[in-house]
């Protein structure tokens, strides 16, 4: 079965006075229908840019993007609009991702209006249906965003994203700005919507416990590159890449009986502006040698488990 989204050697560089910024650098992966790919990494690793580039909010610099097997990398005009309807995004900051001047219902119905395929009555029905689907009370229909708390604003964002029945939804840190109790409500909602509507998610976050819970597969990014990708259970059970290990060991776990063995990373992120070829993590990696200076190749170490590190066998 053709994966819903397939990406090959995707690159996105931003021009900066100091030279090209390699936000996304040679990323390859695919996501099956109804599955969730978790994309995790620290700030500045390019995970948000990756999501936005796939759905054409940013124009990709190089590489290919396939939606349901169709190449949508260089689409323009009408075809791009049709493809865009099938790919939607949910944003991180509930306070800046909803237009403060519009009522809740007009925000949710806007995609329907813009598509121009629905009559006024159909729009009103679909809006009411969407709002009840994401659990927003009917009487809030004419409320303004500043009258709602963060959790319910995020639900409005979700309702807007689902208005055109998309197949693929990029969730860009949708719960990071919410409190723990509200976070759980929104995560459950996203999972239920996936099961009911067969949605395919690309879930971007920096919170490891959230990514473990919601994703089927996880890919770990560092400075624009995917350093490791595998099923989520396998990643936590047997991390291979040194950065993934350091990332997992840095998570403060709530299990007080066996605190995690600390592997403290030294140093700071190097600059993503015209970086040297080879492994970007070499500067901070305890196992780095000259071999790491060469460009790294993404190797399938075991079925479905890809790692981008040439010294993987010595490290484990």
């Amino acid at each position, binding site marked *: 079965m053709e994966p819903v989204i397939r990406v090959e050697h995707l690159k996105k560089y931003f021009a900066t006075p100091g030279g090209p910024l390699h936000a996304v650098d040679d990323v390859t992966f695919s996501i099956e229908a109804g599955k969730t790919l978790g994309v995790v990494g620290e700030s500045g690793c390019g995970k948000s840019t990756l999501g936005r580039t796939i759905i054409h909010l940013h124009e990709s610099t190089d590489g290919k993007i396939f939606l349901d097997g169709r190449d949508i990398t260089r689409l323009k005009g009408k075809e791009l609009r049709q493809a865009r*309807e099938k790919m*939607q995004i949910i944003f*991180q900051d509930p306070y800046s991702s*909803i*237009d*403060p*001047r519009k009522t809740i219902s007009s925000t949710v119905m806007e995609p329907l209006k813009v598509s121009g395929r629905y009559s006024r009555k159909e729009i009103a029905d679909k809006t*009411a249906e969407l709002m009840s689907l994401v659990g927003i009370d009917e009487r809030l229909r004419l409320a303004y965003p500043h009258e709602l708390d963060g959790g319910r604003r995020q639900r409005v964002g979700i309702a807007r994203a689902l208005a055109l029945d998309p197949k693929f939804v990029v969730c860009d840190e949708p719960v990071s700005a919410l409190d723990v109790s509200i976070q759980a409500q929104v995560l459950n909602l996203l999972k239920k919507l996936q099961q009911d509507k067969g949605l395919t998610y690309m879930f971007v976050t920096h919170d490891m416990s959230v990514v473990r819970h919601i994703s089927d597969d996880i890919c770990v990014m560092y400075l624009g590159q995917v350093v490791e990708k595998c099923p989520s259970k396998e990643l936590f059970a047997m991390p291979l890449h040194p950065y993934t290990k350091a990332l997992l060991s840095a998570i403060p776990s709530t299990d007080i009986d066996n605190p995690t063995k600390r592997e403290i990373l030294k140093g700071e992120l190097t600059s993503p502006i015209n970086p040297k070829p080879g492994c970007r993590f070499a500067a901070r990696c305890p196992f780095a040698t000259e071999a790491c200076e060469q460009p790294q190749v993404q190797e399938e170490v075991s079925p479905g488990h890809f790692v981008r590190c040439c010294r993987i066998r010595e490290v484990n």
Partner: protein
Amino acid sequence: MPETKTAAAPVQQKAKKKSEFMRVMRQLSKNKLAMVGLAILIIEILLALLAPYIIPYDYAKMDVVNAFQTPSAAHLFGTDDTGRDIFSRVLYGGRYSITTGILAVLISLVPGIVIGAIAGYFGGQVDNIIMRILDIIQAIPGMLLMIVIASVLGPGFFNTIIALSISSIPGSARMLRAQMLKERENEYIEAAQSINCSKFRIIFSHLLPNCMSPMIVSSTMGVAQTITMAAGLSFIGLGIQPPTPEWGAMLSDARQFMDQAPHLIIFPGLAIAITVLALNFLGDGLRDALDPKLKN
């Protein structure tokens, strides 16, 4: 979903739009000074509109016999060098000053918004070129530019308005551009792009409504500043010419008789000051009232 429910939705939709205006007014009423400002403005506009019918004397009728009279029961503000009643002239003069202020700002808003929106939204080269042109125009101090344009167009009511509006276009364009650049960073603009909104729709249904409140506030202050500038122009003989009872022109006449009749200079100037003060109070009040974040 019961049928009747959704049918009611569109009707309520309109109710909500109107209540946005009510919300702003309710918020504004909390600010005492703004209310004082609004009251003064309404009274002035009423007086200016009714002026021809309520002024005690014909503003142009000369009565040289009792010239230079100090304020008295008969002549509330006294009479000028040719015996004309100053109170009537100030009231009638209100028509010129207020309309000049409001019209000039309105006329300058349209090109200002268009230029600002284009520079703000498209950015890049377009923004650069527009900004450089604005830099050149704004390199000339505002008042000087206006004086030059006024002398090019020649004196007179409409010419003054046009001169005033041209010289305030760069200001409002630059202001809207700055506001657009700030709003453009918000994620709801990216969201609009992701649901296939056209550039046109993003500018007019998302960006501009959110950039409007600071523009409304600055336009209110702009009217105040324009009234002062218009009076200044007439004062140096480039704006509205005497004998029309424009406040600036009246002050300019009164200048020659300062030693004999100092009272001549008080009332026209006071009228300008009060109008400008009222507009500034209102502008400050509007700044808080239009901020959607404030709980109502």
